[in-house]
């Protein structure tokens, strides 16, 4: 299963619909400080079902919806979609949150539960805890992880 595309709209600083094509090998994201690069990482964690606000650098659920400024009104919903391709089939996974607190997961256009998305991902090698996403400043924390958490990482993969 290969990730083909990330689509973001209304999530954090991505007020406008934004599409990022993903290479089969190495995709590089560059840009000035504060431009929104790590927000893309938060978007990926969020659509994969991240429940902890701390992991996506937010304090409340609504912090992920574009909060607006003098020139732009706040967004009403945050929407992130990942497009995968697996042996020719296209699989889209999405998550949406509106300001009134309505939150839902979407698999190939159908509203589903997080459990269903997790199942699709598990079958293709994606564990519940995406150890394959390393946030800014976290690379040396892995090395200081406790022996138990290292075992759990390996157990996930087994």
């Amino acid at each position, binding site marked *: 299963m290969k990730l083909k595309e990330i689509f973001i709209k209304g999530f954090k600083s991505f007020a406008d619909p934004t599409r990022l094509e993903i290479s089969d090998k*190495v*995709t590089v994201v*560059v840009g000035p400080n504060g431009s929104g690069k790590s927000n893309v990482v938060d978007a990926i964690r969020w659509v994969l079902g991240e429940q902890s606000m701390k992991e996506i650098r937010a304090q409340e659920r609504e912090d992920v919806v574009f909060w607006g400024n003098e020139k732009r009104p706040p967004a009403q919903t945050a929407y992130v979609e990942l497009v995968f391709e697996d042996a020719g089939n296209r699989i889209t996974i999405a998550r949406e949150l509106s300001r009134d607190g309505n939150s839902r997961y979407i698999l190939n256009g159908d509203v589903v539960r997080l459990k269903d998305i997790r199942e699709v991902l598990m079958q293709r090698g994606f564990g519940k805890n995406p150890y394959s996403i390393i946030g800014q400043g976290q690379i040396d924390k892995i090395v200081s992880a406790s022996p138990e958490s290292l075992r759990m990482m390996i157990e996930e993969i087994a």
Partner: protein
Amino acid sequence: AREQFMKTFNKINEAFKRYVETLFYGGTGSMRIIEDGDVLESGIEIVISKAGKRVQKLQLLSGGEKALVGIALIMSMLEANSGVFYVLDEVDAPLDDYNSEKFRRLLEQENSQFIVITHNKLIMEAGDIVHGVTMVDGVSKVVQVKMEEVLT
């Protein structure tokens, strides 16, 4: 479950040893299961020694050395589970030029998908696709750039 665990552990450990040797000039590394009965209950410890030195407490490694051990760990998990894509947000920040170069070569050799955020021009060269992010009036914009444009 136990055989499965041991099989995966051995595979990751073999890979970890190889990556530490590639990344640490003359260093060696391995993972050890801290024996206390059932393997599924025990912890795992990382053991590293730099060229010719005795075994080193991980806390005493430098900032850059810890990042290299972290990269070796992630890459070795990849061997056992190549289906996932990897997202690395400025993991190269503590690296000097020599080790940035090594990291770049690793990215180019592996077959898995990587999404890499960096300010380091050496690492940018590893990208097949490069996205430039800017912020205009508080809104992020993304433009796909050609490598030649970035490096000037």
